[in-house]
């Protein structure tokens, strides 16, 4: 009865029916909200499609794909290199995205590029997420000296330019006389090495954000309760606090990932990212800039994939942000005003404190100045 009352009132106040009031678990709420976010769903579908297409078509890690060409294979020019696919009649043709002037299949190259770009993105997301959580958790939970040291470390890293690190890495990887394990690793797995390097510097914003979350969550009653009942620090961190901060984490990891794709594009453009003959989407479009007006397919297809991947990741992130944030409901100021104020009760949150602004770059005052 009370349940119905609540949803009726809130609906009347211009707020979507409040799902959490039905006694769902947090996971269920998040899932429902996420699935209700059409932009995010479209993003997810598009991204899954690209992911599957890229990784099955030209093969990965030595597993052959179903597409007949690889990104390095040169074949005779068909149709002067122009795309053979057509919408009407719907046909795929020999080289659906065309060929570059020496006869490599643009579809294969684009797919390989998408693989590489997605790999970099995921590697960066994982590394940045992992380090960010650990550093943020330790400094936010334990405070004191560990916090001071870790936060000064992030201060140092945040002002070191990514471009410089990428250039140093490119130089090291390119130097043949060195013969160290790193040089050999970097020259054979250029993409992975680049991803790891970028991951090692992009955790900083995340760490600051996680620290903010931990700072506020550790003061909450449920943490005190856990502590009194004798839980260890590790247990409190991983079982009690982290699940409550996971929303902020996931959202910001997705945003870091979408920024990572663009970082890779920029670095490849500046000549310190992925190097030919391996390829990435960024490298493809920067290599084919000149063909912009005359053989547009060389430029547009890889460009389209960058935009699609980036756009879908951003929408997924946006959907997650809305899904994890209990305060963000379909809110209509006009209606709320017209209907007076009963929306209030429904607005009271779930267990998640979302007071920290949800942007990867925001970390509040760096020095623990956010008092309560």
């Amino acid at each position, binding site marked *: 009865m009370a349940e119905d009352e609540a949803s009726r009132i809130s609906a009347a106040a211009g707020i979507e029916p409040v799902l959490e009031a039905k006694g769902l678990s947090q996971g269920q709420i998040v899932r429902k909200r996420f699935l209700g976010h059409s932009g995010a769903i479209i993003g997810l579908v598009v991204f899954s499609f690209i992911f599957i297409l890229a990784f099955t078509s030209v093969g990965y890690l030595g597993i052959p794909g179903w597409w007949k060409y690889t990104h390095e294979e*040169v074949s005779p020019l068909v149709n002067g290199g122009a795309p053979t696919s057509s919408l009407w009649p719907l046909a795929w043709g020999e080289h659906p995205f065309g060929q570059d*002037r*020496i006869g490599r299949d643009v579809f294969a190259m684009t797919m390989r590029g998408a693989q590489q770009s997605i790999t970099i993105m995921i590697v960066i997301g994982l590394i940045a997420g992992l380090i960010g959580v650990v550093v943020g958790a330790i400094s936010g939970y334990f405070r004191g000296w560990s916090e001071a040291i870790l936060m000064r470390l992030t201060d140092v890293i945040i002002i070191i330019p990514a471009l410089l690190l990428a250039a140093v890495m490119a130089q090291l990887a*390119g130097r*043949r006389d060195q013969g160290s394990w790193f040089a050999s690793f970097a020259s054979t797995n250029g993409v992975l090495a680049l991803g790891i390097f970028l991951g090692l510097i992009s955790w900083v914003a995340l760490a600051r954000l996680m620290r903010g979350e931990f700072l506020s969550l550790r003061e909450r009653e449920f943490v005190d309760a856990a502590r009194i009942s004798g839980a260890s620090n590790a247990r409190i961190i991983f079982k009690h606090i982290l699940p409550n901060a996971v929303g902020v984490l996931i959202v910001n990891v997705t945003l870091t990932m979408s920024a990572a794709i663009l970082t890779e594009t920029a670095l490849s453009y500046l*000549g310190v990212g992925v190097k*030919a003959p391996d390829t990435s989407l960024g490298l493809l479009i920067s290599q084919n800039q*000149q063909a*912009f*007006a005359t053989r547009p397919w060389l430029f547009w297809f890889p460009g389209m994939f960058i935009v699609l991947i980036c756009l879908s990741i951003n929408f997924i992130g946006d959907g997650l942000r809305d899904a994890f944030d209990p305060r963000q409901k379909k809110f209509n100021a006009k209606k709320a005003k017209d209907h007076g104020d009963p929306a209030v009760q429904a607005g009271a949150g779930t267990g998640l404190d979302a007071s920290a602004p949800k942007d990867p770059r925001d970390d509040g005052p760096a020095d623990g100045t956010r008092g309560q």
Partner: protein
Amino acid sequence: MRLGRISKAVGVAAAAAIALSACAGNSGGTTPTTAAAASKQGGSATVVEVNAFNTFNPNTADGNTDINSKVSYATHSGFFYIDNKLNVVRNEKFGKMEKVSDDPLTVKYTINDGVKWSDGTPVTAADLVLQWAAFSGYYNDADAEGKTGTSYFSYAGDPTGIALTDFPELGDDGRSMTLKYSKPFADWEIAIGGPGIDIPAHVLAKKAGLADTKAFIDLLKGMPRGDSKAPKPANAQLKAMADLWNTGFDTKTLPADPSLYLSNGPFLVKSINQDQSLTMVKNKDYNWGPEANLDEITVRYIGEAPAQVQALKNGEADIIAPQASADTVEQLKALESQGVTVDVGNQLAYDHIDLNYSGPFADKNVREAFMKAVPRADIVDKIVKKLDPKAAPLDSQLFVPDQAPYAESAKNNGSSAYQGVDIEGAKKLLNGATPEVRIMYNKDNPNRVDAFSLISESATKAGFKIVDGGLGKSDWGKALGDGSYDATIFGWSNSGVGVSGVPQIFKSGNDSNFNQFSDPAADKLMDELIVTTDKSKQDGLVAQIDKMIWDSAYGLPLFQSVGVDAYSDRITGVKYMPNQTGVWWNFWEWAQK
């Protein structure tokens, strides 16, 4: 383009001029076509260049980028220039250059009265002596490792020819100089004195603390030829002048001291906007040579070809000469409807892949195997056919197809072994080995990138492990010959087309012999070549050297480059030029409509 050395360009042009004029039955030395009377006087033009200007002395090792040479060409004059038919055109208004005797070869240079620097000082024999001292390396006594002795002028060109002369004889009027060669020298006509006499001796003398140019001449006269076996302590005054010559003219902005940018040619530099543009205005005094129609030429720097095309399209540039690629040419052709004129022509340059005589390629079999794996026909089809439907792989290291001896030499030099890709043959030569080969090329030049991809694809099939050593446009030139790669794809602007150019690239230990090719027999032939003035004998020698180069599995020429320039309908008088001077060769004929 580091290879844009005046000397080289001149060398190429001269030899090519001899070759071409021989074919055409045209005796060089036509008088300059006086600018069409119809051309409008005044106006301005904006020319786009890739590199930013950085020195007023384009002859030094560090200053010899094409832009510095071009600015120098427009602001200085000399006894001759090269036209786009590759003839040496004498400028009699500047002075007279005459061969006094054939044996010993003696050349007399006389500068006309009234020729002067833009500060009013006359151009005299002292300026010629300075150029002679710098170009000949006469006073250098440093040994090869640079451990003992002194190396004065850091001249980028080839000193071989002019080094055959002793201190010149100077006329009493101070305006003439006579050079006597100890051996005949084929390219005497273009050895010195043009196209620009670019560094004023009186400025150098003054800055080195000498009283005047007479003291300068006396100082040089008193010094003996440098001997690397018996080095002497450096002469402080000459050293001071040489240092000034080497670096004193380097600048990114207009120097406060006007004596550092004196002109004696049709234009003088008016302003430099660091890394953005350079503006030249007409030299009002100039009347000793072809006079310019335009009042002002602005040079702007744009690195990328698409940006150049867009700047032309948008009217910010009037004349561009971007790196030719199918895309660029096609884009430019599309602009013809807007009144843009596009000139496409062959360049006196060709792309080639050179193999280092060291590292994995120390073994000749490996070099041969690699050469068998290079898909030359495929490269030509895919890279230049779109620009030039008649293109074919180049089959000689020293001749270009326009030259008569090309066919004969191509038939006999052993190039026939590398007509098609022979993966099996390459595998046999490699005998199961999988050498790792690092190929260096200019990553910002799409032709080289694609040639690399095709070669890499094919060579991988033969068992080579190809490492991509491509470098950006600012770095690849510097990396040449530094041993950081095993093979390199790049272009020679003149290689083998002229006789002076031959030893520069192929003689043991020479400056531009980047892959350390060394063959004593070939060295000997080259020594003979540069003192041979007879054209047919030259061809015979060159053909022999060509064969030696091919026999030693030096590398492969790929194709002759295609050049393009384009100019807007505002401008007339721009003509295509195959050599390094490019469109600048007749800048005085440019006129605004």
